[in-house]
């Protein structure tokens, strides 16, 4: 029983016996101790200890990068580090948007605009409804007065609506074209 407890306390839960996995040599398994990394470490040590070697390595690498980008550069491509950022940099955030100045109207143009009479706003939905109502009313009156046979009322409704719509549209276009005249 005491042995069992000591096994738990030791934390060694691997199986003992013939089917137990082979013990792992942790020191040998560490990647950075492999011969390949030993070469890297030697280079690192050299770079850290020899400033001239460091400078030479930096220059060598820069030459390689420049050589790789030269053809692209000639074609107008920017290096990744030269690319414009997607968003405005902090120093540009304090500048007003360039479109504001472009939208400012000239004073003379403003003076001219002030002299023109204004027009009222007729929402499009209202316009359509008004035209439709007038058409329906005209048709109903025509049918009531017996001017048109009742069987023609559906056709007449469409016709009158179309005529009134066109008159309203033409009137609006005329007003837009002759905007300097008073609405009256």
């Amino acid at each position, binding site marked *: 029983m005491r042995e069992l407890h000591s096994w738990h306390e030791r934390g060694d839960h691997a199986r003992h016996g013939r089917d137990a996995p082979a013990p792992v040599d942790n020191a040998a398994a560490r990647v950075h101790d492999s011969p390949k990394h030993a070469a890297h470490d030697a280079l690192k040590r050299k770079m850290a200890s020899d400033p001239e070697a460091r400078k030479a390595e930096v220059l060598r690498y820069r030459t390689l990068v420049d050589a790789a980008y030269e053809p692209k550069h000639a074609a107008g491509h920017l290096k990744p580090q030269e690319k414009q950022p997607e968003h405005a940099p902090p120093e540009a955030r304090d500048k007003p948007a360039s*479109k504001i100045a472009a939208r400012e109207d000239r004073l003379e143009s403003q003076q001219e605009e002030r002299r*023109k009479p204004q027009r*009222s*706003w007729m929402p499009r939905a209202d316009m359509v409804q008004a035209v439709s109502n007038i058409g329906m009313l005209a048709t109903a009156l025509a049918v009531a007065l017996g001017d048109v046979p009742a069987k023609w009322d559906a056709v007449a409704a469409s016709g009158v609506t179309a005529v009134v719509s066109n008159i309203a549209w033409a009137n609006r276009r005329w007003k837009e074209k002759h905007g300097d005249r008073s609405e009256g």
Partner: protein
Amino acid sequence: MAIDRKAEQATRTMLGHAMRNELDDLAEAMRTAGNDALLRAIPLCLLASAYIAIDVSDRWPTDADLHDIAKRAARSATELDISEEEIYEYLSRVALGAEKVDDVFSAEGIVPIPLYATANLLLTFRPRDKHWWEYLNQIWDAAETAEHTSLTVLPALMLRARRESAAQEGE
């Protein structure tokens, strides 16, 4: 925001008088409209001003944008008695901010400042091919369309705006 027709008509009349610097006619229009219509004109002015600020900045206006807009609007041809600082405060704190007009301006400025600022903004920044009242129509139409449009459309609209802007730059 749904546009109140009656308030809109009164607001448009007052804006026209303000723009032409017809201050006596403006005072008469205010008297005729009554207090109720005047109070309903303020949200319309706030809406129009905020729309113009966003429209001309082509983004949500930064502080620098608002200073620039205020500077240009203050020198408008209307020659109304409103300063650059007042327009800036009005835009940043009320039209695009969360404060109320009466929290920011004195009682005398509650109606004139929104009206004067909106008149100046409309005249200064209307698109070249539009009269100021047509620009106002555009603003109301846009507001009514936005009122009935789901916010889920916004990313798609941003995408479309971005693509069209890129296409224009490419031309």
